[in-house]
């Protein structure tokens, strides 16, 4: 703890740390809107109790300060699995002073984060029974068509919500086992990863078929996270459970990864593509490191080395690379959220 604090002090110009009263997992950075001189950051707790918390922080890149907004903290049932702000680059879609925040956990929820308060807008529940619940492991907000949110569930399905109308657009049995993550590529195309070890691409225009882009070498080794390269949609990255590998896929060559990044010394927990570059990706894991990689045009014989590294001192659980602040990477470890300048 001292070590990392020390570090953040040492590099105070390049990193900012926020200490939370509880362990953090989910995290989101608001898109940069002109109306907000300060960027909002939402962090979700990981507390092994029913009631968890979501805190909203204000980050000022000018003076590197992070200010919690106690009035904007609110309860969330169960630890949220993912947080995401409305991706709209067009601010006309939202009220100037408020942000829409979506959370996933037992259900998908939509919150309106106002100037001084947070209002629960809606809860999206597609369950047929009230008694049982199939938790959502993740979701993704469609940037091009922001009324669409796709959720991934352990009930093997992905559900596409029309959040404006509050209805399910479609629900697909996407995998043979639990679905762990989902990512949009286009307005109607998304991909998902699952405990069945596969990465599949779906097109809402042809719901009868999916395309398997990758299958983990040992059948049924779960794939936990998926990141689609927004700058070059041919590429996506995924991570395997308990593996130090980051698998880079080219959807043009299914089943064979274009690269496997293997310099982490422990399991990788999170990945994020650079918002402004098609060739860079950041990964973070249990080896306490965050690594930034550049994908070479040709991989060397000894694998690929990352370009730069950062050690947090604790196992890094979360990693976000905000489009609004492409020079900042946010990581979460233990009770801390840290912003790193890159």
């Amino acid at each position: 703890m001292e070590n990392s604090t020390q570090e953040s002090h040492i590099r105070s110009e390049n990193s900012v740390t926020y200490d939370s009263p509880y362990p953090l997992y989910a995290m989101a950075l608001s898109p940069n809107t002109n109306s907000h001189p300060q960027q909002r950051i939402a962090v979700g707790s990981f507390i092994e109790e029913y009631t968890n918390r979501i805190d909203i922080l204000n980050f000022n890149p000018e003076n590197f300060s992070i200010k919690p907004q106690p009035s904007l903290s609110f309860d969330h049932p169960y630890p949220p699995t993912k947080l995401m702000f409305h991706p709209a680059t067009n601010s006309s879609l939202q009220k100037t002073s408020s942000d829409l925040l979506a959370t996933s956990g037992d259900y998908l929820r939509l919150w309106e984060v106002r100037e001084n308060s947070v209002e629960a807008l809606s809860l999206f529940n597609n369950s047929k029974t009230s008694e049982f619940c199939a938790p959502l492991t993740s979701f993704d907000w469609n940037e091009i068509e922001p009324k669409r949110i796709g959720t991934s569930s352990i009930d093997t399905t992905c559900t596409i919500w029309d959040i404006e109308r509050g209805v399910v657009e479609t629900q697909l049995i996407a995998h043979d086992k639990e679905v762990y993550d989902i990512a949009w590529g286009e307005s109607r195309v998304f991909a998902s990863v699952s405990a069945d070890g596969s990465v599949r691409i779906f097109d809402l225009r042809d719901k009868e078929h999916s395309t398997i882009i990758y299958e983990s070498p040992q059948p049924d080794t779960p794939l936990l996270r998926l990141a689609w390269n927004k700058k070059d949609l041919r590429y996506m990255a995924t991570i395997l459970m308990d593996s130090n590998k980051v698998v880079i896929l080219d959807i043009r060559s299914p089943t064979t990864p274009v690269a496997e990044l293997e310099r982490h010394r422990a399991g990788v927990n999170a990945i994020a593509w650079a918002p402004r570059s098609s060739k860079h990706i950041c990964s973070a894991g249990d080896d306490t490191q965050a690594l930034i990689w550049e994908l070479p045009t040709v991989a060397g014989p000894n694998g690929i080395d990352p370009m730069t590294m950062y050690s947090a001192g604790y196992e890094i659980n979360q990693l976000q690379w905000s489009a609004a602040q492409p020079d900042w990477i946010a990581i979460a470890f233990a009770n801390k959220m840290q912003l790193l300048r890159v």
Partner: protein
Amino acid sequence: MDEVRVGVSSCSSEAEQTQSRDTVEETAASSSSGWRPRELAFVAFVPRDKEEQQEDERVNAAGKFLKYRAFVRRPLVGRLTKEIVETYRICNPQFKYSEDLNPKRFLTSPSTGVLNDGYDNANSDLILTVNLVLIHVEKSRRYIVKDLLGHGTFGQVAKCWDSDTNSFVAVKIIKNQPAYYQQALVEVTILTTLNKKYDPEDKNHIVRIYDYFVYQRHLCICFELLDTNLYELIKMNHFRGLSIGIVQLFSKQILCGLALLKDAGIIHCDLKPENILLCTSSVKQAEIKIIDFGSACMENRTVYSYIQVYIHCRKKAFMINPVVILIIWYLNYMSYLFPLQSRYYRSPEVLLGYQYTTAIDMWSFGCIVAELFLGLPLFPGASEFDLLRRMIEIIGGQPPDYVLRDAKNTSKFFKCIGSLQNIEISEGSKNGRVYQALTEEEYEARDLKKPSIGKEYFNNMNLEAIVTNYPYRKNLPKEDIAKEKQTRLALIDFLRGLVEFDPAKRWSPFQASKHPFITGEPFTHPYRPSPETPYIPVVQNIKVDNHPGGGHWFAAGLSPNVSGKNRASLYSSPHFQMAQHPPANSYGSVGSHGSYNDGAGLGSSYGSYGESSNMFAYYSPIAPSGMNMHNQGSMSMLGNSPDARRRIKYQPGNGLGVSPSGGNFAPLPLGASPSQFTPPSSYSQIPVGSPGHFGPTSPARGASHGSPLGKTAAASQFNRRKNWGHSGSPQTQETAFSSHWHGQYPDSTSQAEGTSQAPGSSPSYIQSNINPGNWKQRGSGGVSANQKIPSMVMPGSNMNSQSTELTHDNVETGFSLPDPGDWDPNYSDELLLQEGGSDESSLSTEFGRSMNLGSIEPWSGFGRLNGPGQTFSTVEMGSPPTHDFQAAYIHSMSKPFHLMPHISQNSPSRFGHQSVQRFTHGRPPQGSDWNQIKIQAPSGFSNVGPRSPRNASFTGNMSWGRRMNPPTSSIPPISNIPPTSRSRKDYARID
């Protein structure tokens, strides 16, 4: 500690940092996008030295990175994905999640449960969902359904995870209908025999069968999982031909499989590129396997020519095992019911409705080899007419006259330009052709509709031109072109021997395998295959067992194809067990003409055949206890008719003897011609007496001999049947079947109804039980035997009654779960037969008649003969004296034959006296259901022609095997999910 170490390592190497920074900057500069990571919060990456790496590897191997975790806890990402249910349960003990509520991904369409308590859809397909577990109860084995590989009218093929072996398998889930069920048993039987007996080391490129069981009333057959089929492969190659080296490689492997089939006397009947699959295990590159034996059958002649006769003389006379006869007859009969071979690969004899042999597979093989080379089918006939037209055009010539003369469909495609006399004369002389192919106009005039003619791919070239002019691959060096030129000449010669109109001249697998195209030897001159190894027909020895309890069984009939001991032993059927028979002293054979003439009790025998066949069918490997056959009482019949005797001698030869191809069938069955085959009709048509009596009459046409009788019988039965008011197809055979049945058992209506239709549905049944090997063996033995044996045994009416009983029993047993014992070659059971009442004359007559009947119509169907049954027994061949063959037979029988447990109970009565109780005896609760189903099944099943489900199902387009992944070169736009990549129809929409 670890943190410290990490920290140290990141800070300690300042010098290196500088260096690596430069590298970084270089790379970054070279990247097209402007952005690159700066070293602000991050520092340049420092590769670890080897020691560190090794240490890490050790640690990783030992503890899965735990050294980095302060607390031994799972990463949060895991706790909110893989373990989210546990995590949420910790957060809230009331949290509930049930996997069972997950929406199911249906693989089967339609997915609405209609039949079988909602387990089946309207098509009687088991409704499959992902992760459905198919359970083999007896073995406690679980197969988890993962995907659908294909489907056809027979059912579905699913890719399943076998948790016992941690591997994927392909499971064929047969429709819950008796016809398909039984048909699938044939496949099980054939493949098991092929695998275990003929190819225990998996060297012959035949798909492996791993397991089979019944789940939710569906027969499930578990196969090794294979990859793409050759059609898909060609398609992936954009319908360009494969390189000639690959063609050679594949041809060799297919031949290897075909040689095995030939040895086993099995006709695949549906050989085509879709049924040849690449192996997944990439141990051997480009290894292929032949799949789908759902259409396979035993060679007709094999089955046909072997007759088992049980001579039992303690009381009055001899007893024939009627079941055997029934099987023989029925097999032959059924073999004509189903169309075989997918059109492009259909041999001329099948197309023309001529008897067929393993040679039809060689034809198909030739077509496949050509297609592999050309990328397109050699004979893409849009109709049968078109198909024949293409054959004639590409190969030149036409089917030989002897085929045309006897083939059932000749008149559809040919006109006769000679008289009957001409036919006679023309035999032997090749120049005077008696038949001329119809022109398109003539065909139209006859058929009243235009034949569909497909697109011309080869510019009306002949075979030589097609192969020679086929474009060479680009960029092929000159010397390679010269080399391939030679290989192509070899290929042409090779194909010539395969796509040969005359089935008798067409090469056998063995002959073909010595061709330079296969062996790789330089091709210098046209290949002349050495004649097939002569079979050892006559002197085949079968031991006669004289043990006190034993009766004599012997096999009668000629089998030209019996080649050796091994083969015979393989074939021997487990089903017939002889034991405890009183000493027998005479031999008999079935099917004498004499009996025919005696003619009493027509209908009954006929019907019984059908029935018994059913029973056989049910006596499937799966049946637990085998069948209880109550032959005993009813079976007795002995005739000493001289005619019969003679008949036996010549039985295989009838009709054929006259024909050029029939050389083998000449009085002594020594011939080696592969084409030989005795149609069922031969029995009826061959006049009693010496070979001299055999006229040129062809079996098909010459109704004059005995067939009139048959016709009458059939007709009358038909009427009877009508009276009974059963619905059914008007088909003669079928009708005859059922009518007989009714005739026999006027009293027992309900039974009769239930069973009467069965014959239609049971083609497969019979097949499954019959054992080609035995037949063959017996046949060969029989030949010699016949000559010496004065007396014949004729099955009689008694047999009929028995058979009915049997049928019922079968109904019961057939649906019970599989019993390994049924399979096990070493498993042995009770004896078959005991004594029975005897009524010589009637028996023989009836038998004769039934044969007759059988012969009347066999040509009208096209089906294939399916059929080997279980063939496990250890028959000893080759023991010298003729009389010994009985023993041999016995041995063979002594294996697992379950037919006869109830022998002693039989009623001797012939007509309708059999006990009804048997019918209910031991029937499982669902028996009634089955019966009902059965009733419908036959009609559909027996329909000849395209309507028959069999046709559709087995010859259909189901491609089995994994779909290929797309070539990587195609770049799908993101917005369009690439059709190239592996797609599946698997996920369902829920909303």
